[in-house]
């Protein structure tokens, strides 16, 4: 009888632990997988990569929007801050640049409505020295994460225009 109670208690405690740990670990684990995929297994760090037009076959990120052209940069600030430079789309098309920390936090977002001539900023880790200069500085709580450039491109023609513009995206160490 005592043995059954012991087994039951061990099972219930393990279910609770498994449930909570999975909930807490899921964001970091899933972000880690996304960073690995978006950086080509770690080969492209601090550089933008350009996703093909979203189709039914797109499988890199869940729930992709078929109306946007995506470019992504997996950043690593261990060697210092990086400069991010994203030029505008033609015809004032909507562009947004968002910075995600490794815990999924959307720590900053900028768009073409407020920055119609392009988006430029320094990205660096929290509590590090502010980079001198006039550019805005964005702080992230984690050393690694993802920068995502989204451009409105619902048609093939608009996608081609946005694609041409995004090829000038830069995400590289300062200096």
């Amino acid at each position, binding site marked *: 009888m005592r043995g059954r109670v012991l087994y039951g208690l061990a099972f219930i405690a393990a279910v609770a632990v498994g449930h909570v740990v*999975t909930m807490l670990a899921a964001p970091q684990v899933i972000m880690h997988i996304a960073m690995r995929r978006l950086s080509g297994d770690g080969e492209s760090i601090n550089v933008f990569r350009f996703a093909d037009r979203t189709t039914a076959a797109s499988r890199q990120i*869940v729930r992709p929007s078929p109306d946007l052209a995506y470019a992504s940069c997996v950043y690593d600030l261990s060697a210092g801050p990086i400069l991010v430079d994203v030029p505008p789309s033609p015809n004032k098309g909507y562009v947004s640049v*968002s910075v995600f920390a490794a815990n999924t936090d959307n720590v900053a977002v900028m768009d073409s409505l407020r920055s119609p001539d392009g988006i430029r900023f320094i990205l660096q880790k929290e509590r590090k020295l502010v980079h001198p200069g006039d550019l805005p500085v964005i702080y992230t709580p984690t050393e690694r994460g993802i920068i995502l450039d989204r451009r409105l491109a619902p048609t093939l023609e608009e996608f081609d225009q946005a694609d041409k513009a995004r090829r000038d995206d830069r995400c590289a160490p300062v200096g």
Partner: protein
Amino acid sequence: MPVRSSAKAIGVLAMVVIGLVVGAASAIIALKHVGMGGEEYSGWSGSRVTGSAEAGPLLRARVALTGLLALNRSQAIYFTRKVDDLGEPLREDCHYRLVGGPLPGKWWSITAYASDDYLPQNQDDALSVDASEVTPDKRGIWEAEVGPSPNPAMPWLSTRQAGEFDLTLRIYNPASQAQRDFASIAFPKVERISCGDSR
């Protein structure tokens, strides 16, 4: 006696391992199927803290699993629904009519996702309907077709190969009133027209 003790230890260990697996599986099922835990209006549910650092562990995990890299509400607000206006699950073999009015943002789109959270596996080039495709009438009311085949009279969102699916409404650069109060948004209706070959 040592034999009984070690048998008991193995039994406890087995219970712990099974329990951990069951706990992890229950967490994944809860994350995928319990919704975003936010607010629901006219069948559409969304959360004010998606993509935000304010999100708690549960919402953060749900977003990671079903909407990774979502924008925060100043850039976009997201709403999802899995059922039609009668509360029936959305199905690939049914035709639905989306009926909406002006939406409070610079641009919007509605996309169907299959139960694996990816786009339906079809080549219809009709993966979404958006603000630039619909033709509002004098009152600003617009209509669109959701189903496995098109309706020539209106924009079409193809659900071929979608199985049981959900719809995601994205409103980009939402008005500040909409960001503060989701109840102020006039959400599109999702009316079931027909199912199977009855159309």
